[in-house]
């Protein structure tokens, strides 16, 4: 498959774009995160009276000048109806990232070496929900010709490639809540293995609709005890946690081969030094009780990075605020870090954003990079009383200034799929 003597190439991050419950723009969102602000609020878009979960992390509507999201600032109105909301969010985050990177080549060879890999955990769920109503009403002939392309997961990558003429690998990850990390890790590998010089990579999700909230409620996965105090609902590791809070949004990175980035004088945020994956082979929705899957995912990522656990100063946890999952991940981290655990900071930014499913790993990659850039560990909000003791500093309630050069970020998904990525200061 590879020519003799081929050596993997270095991959760096040269652009970041984020559309999230904390707003739009990597620095704005980071500022709010570090300040301990929450993006969780009562669900606005539809009637929740029949749903036990009534809060979510919703992207604030408004103008970009106010760090809010208006699809019309990115996408012509005529095109919007051809995209589910998850694609609109991905598109906006991609535009933000590409502009940030300054990589908008006009020449064909450069475009052919630039690809897109934006995934989604679920895809166009709201579009599917609305279109299914036509079927139920016996109006199948009224299904829009845009229904399928508006719903398909890989159309986020498709639309972004069309916008910029990026003709390199056009791909998409779909691994539930691990999607974002898989997309970034796989895209980085494509660059390392010389399939592309630049990849626009990330994840997007927009599942805050009756079908999405109802579906996760049925699986008993969502928080229902904090409907009157939304900002307190997502509380990873806290003794009162009772499920995750769904979030929507998108995170997109521009990944670039190191020499390529240097040659064009691009600003380099961090290097993608490690990527690891594993499968639980255990249960469709529960993580393996021993944390074995999480452990092997992190171990594989550190091995590919050539980094020892003691060299990692911060872990951005999957930490969704579920009863079972949080401590399983914690145990896996304790096991892997061993004595080095007492110097480690680990937090869950889902405490502020909610769980963005397929976009989670992507926005958390941005937070991981920002942690390196600013030497700051973002807080785990609402961690009043941990459900069990640990030597690891879970960065309860307030951000911490720390020397941070290497970060590992975890994402785990239904089906028992685990992915970890390691970023390092360049």
């Amino acid at each position, binding site marked *: 498959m590879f020519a003799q003597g081929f050596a993997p190439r270095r991959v760096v991050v040269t652009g970041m774009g984020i559309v999230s419950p904390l707003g739009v723009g990597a620095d704005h969102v980071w500022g709010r995160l570090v300040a301990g602000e929450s993006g969780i609020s009562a669900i606005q878009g539809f009637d929740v009276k029949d749903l036990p979960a009534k809060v979510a992390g919703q992207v604030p509507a408004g103008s970009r000048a106010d760090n809010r999201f208006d699809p019309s600032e990115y996408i012509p*109105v*005529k095109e919007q109806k051809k995209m589910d909301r998850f694609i609109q969010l991905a598109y906006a985050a991609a535009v933000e990232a590409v502009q940030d990177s300054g990589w908008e080549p006009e020449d064909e060879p450069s475009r052919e070496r630039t690809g897109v890999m934006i995934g989604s955990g679920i895809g166009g769920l709201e579009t599917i929900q609305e279109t299914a109503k036509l079927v139920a009403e016996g109006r199948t*002939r009224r299904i829009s*010709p845009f229904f399928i392309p508006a719903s398909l997961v890989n159309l986020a990558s498709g639309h972004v490639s069309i916008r910029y003429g990026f003709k390199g690998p056009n791909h998409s990850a779909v691994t539930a809540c691990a999607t974002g990390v898989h997309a970034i890790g796989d895209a980085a590998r494509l660059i390392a293995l010389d399939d592309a010089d630049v990849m626009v990579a990330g994840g997007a999700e927009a599942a805050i609709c009756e079908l999405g909230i109802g579906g996760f409620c049925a699986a008993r996965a969502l928080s229902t005890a904090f409907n009157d105090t939304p900002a307190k609902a997502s509380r990873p590791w806290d003794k009162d946690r009772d499920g995750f809070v769904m979030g929507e949004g998108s995170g997109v990175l521009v990944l670039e081969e190191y020499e390529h980035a240097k040659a064009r004088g691009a600003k380099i945020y961090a290097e993608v030094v490690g990527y690891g994956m594993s499968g639980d082979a255990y249960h469709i929705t529960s993580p393996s009780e021993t944390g074995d899957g999480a452990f092997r995912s992190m171990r594989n990522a550190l091995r590919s990075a050539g980094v020892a656990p003691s060299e990692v100063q911060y872990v951005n946890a999957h930490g969704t605020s579920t009863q079972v999952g949080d401590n399983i991940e914690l145990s896996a981290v304790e096991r892997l870090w061993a004595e080095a655990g007492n110097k480690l900071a680990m937090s869950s930014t889902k405490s502020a954003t909610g769980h963005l499913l397929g976009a989670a790993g992507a926005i958390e990659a941005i937070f991981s990079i920002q942690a390196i850039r600013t030497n700051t560990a973002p807080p785990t909000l609402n961690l009043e009383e941990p459900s069990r003791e640990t030597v690891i500093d879970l960065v309860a309630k307030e951000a911490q200034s720390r020397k941070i050069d290497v970060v590992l970020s975890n994402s785990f998904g239904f089906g028992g799929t685990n992915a970890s990525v390691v970023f390092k200061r360049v």
Partner: protein
Amino acid sequence: MSEVADKVKKIVVEHLGVEESKVTETASFIDDLGADSLDTVELVMAFEEAFGVEIPDDAAEKIGTVKDAIDFIEKQKAA
């Protein structure tokens, strides 16, 4: 301009996001108004909905211009 023509043009403006002045009777959806094949399918569906008519696929394929649409709908309504 007939009531049908007026309504057809309005629908075209709305769905294709084009300026009203460009939607002349001889304008081709694809060549002049920037539509692709999926846009034209959606347009035909919008005409069906707005005028309460049924436009079979073989007839829809022959509707390439604004005038084609107006003529077909007026004939249907007269029948």
